[in-house]
């Protein structure tokens, strides 16, 4: 690669990063969301469709911050998990299939966030490893039990291979890098990024600002 092409390549990367980082998603319909106007969100245990058995709890640990930072009261996820277990709902699939209003009444919540892990895996490709997380988020209102908001978010990571000099040495470096990523894939930053994108608003598909947020009601009006 010549010196002249480097800035061009970097600009392209910059453009791609900005595009994915702050892309304006197609506008969602917030009519139902507005009419329920939830103040609080009950984040229930996550349903896991990946093969990584611990992923559900790990992912659960990432959800409170992005939702609360949108201005909603988020019920303490670990306490909620234990109370549901005590009520005979130890399996998250059972929680998700339970009646929404029943869940709401157990906690006095205004809305329930159902999160499902579709993918949480590391795939070894030729000389690289691709780490993928994919989630489905659905918010249901406690007054009606209707879906107020839904979003699917996928994030993919591949280690950057900055091989020293090229040739066999670079190939070996790439292979080692790929093997290390495969052996110890770090899903948590990816999961947090996915949440960050999913809940952003108005420059993302996320929740309009809740009652604790200074932009409450203003951002939704401005987005129209």
């Amino acid at each position, binding site marked *: 690669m010549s*010196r002249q092409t*480097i*800035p061009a390549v*970097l*600009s392209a*990367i*910059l453009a791609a*990063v*900005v595009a994915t*980082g*702050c892309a304006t998603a197609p506008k969602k319909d917030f009519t139902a969301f507005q009419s329920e106007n939830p*103040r*609080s969100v009950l984040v229930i245990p996550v349903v896991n469709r990946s093969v990584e058995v*611990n992923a559900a*709890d*790990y992912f*659960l*640990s*990432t959800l*409170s*911050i992005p939702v*609360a*930072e949108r*201005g*909603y*009261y*988020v*019920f*303490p*996820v*670990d*306490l909620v998990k*234990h*109370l549901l277990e005590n009520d005979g709902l130890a399996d998250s699939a059972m929680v998700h299939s339970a009646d929404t209003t029943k869940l709401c009444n*157990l*906690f*006095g919540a*205004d809305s329930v966030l159902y999160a499902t892990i579709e993918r949480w895996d590391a795939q070894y490709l030729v000389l690289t490893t691709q780490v993928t997380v994919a989630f489905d988020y659905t918010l249901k209102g406690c007054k009606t039990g209707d879906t107020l908001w839904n979003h699917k978010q996928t994030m993919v990571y591949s280690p950057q291979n900055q091989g020293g000099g090229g040739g066999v040495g670079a190939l070996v470096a790439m292979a080692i890098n790929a093997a290390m990523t495969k052996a110890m894939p770090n899903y*948590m930053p990816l999961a*947090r990024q996915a949440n*960050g994108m999913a809940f*952003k608003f108005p420059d993302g598909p996320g929740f309009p600002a809740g009652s*604790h*947020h200074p932009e409450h009601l203003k951002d939704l009006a401005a987005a129209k």
Partner: protein
Amino acid sequence: MNRKIFLPWLVLTAALLTVTGCAGNRMYAWGNYDDTLYAHYKNPQDHEKHLEKLNVLVTDAETTGGGKVPPGLYAEYGFALYEAGRTDESVIYFGKEKEKWPESSFVMDKMIRNVRRQDEIRKNAASPEAVPTTEAGGRKQ
């Protein structure tokens, strides 16, 4: 570093800043709340450490965090105290959650009632002579 190399680095730095900039500033003093929960789910047996970490999070949020205690933190700490058998303290923190976040009052009242009821049961179990033998008459103190 010469100019030709410097410029691309500047562009890359700008790109990284843009990405992190999208996250924006936080409303609450979370500390490493998510890492603490993650560690708890990774090593669920380590109750003491979890309790200690939550204690630090609460203290930091109240002091250096300027009182911007995030939703759920008092309750999570109260629950860890309850699990450790420190019921009187747990009730205090359930109360703090309720006071700071009225949205939580229904479930916090429920937690406080549950803790008190279990305290009662434990007290009675510890001194069985205090428990009246007849159900019909109700309990007498």
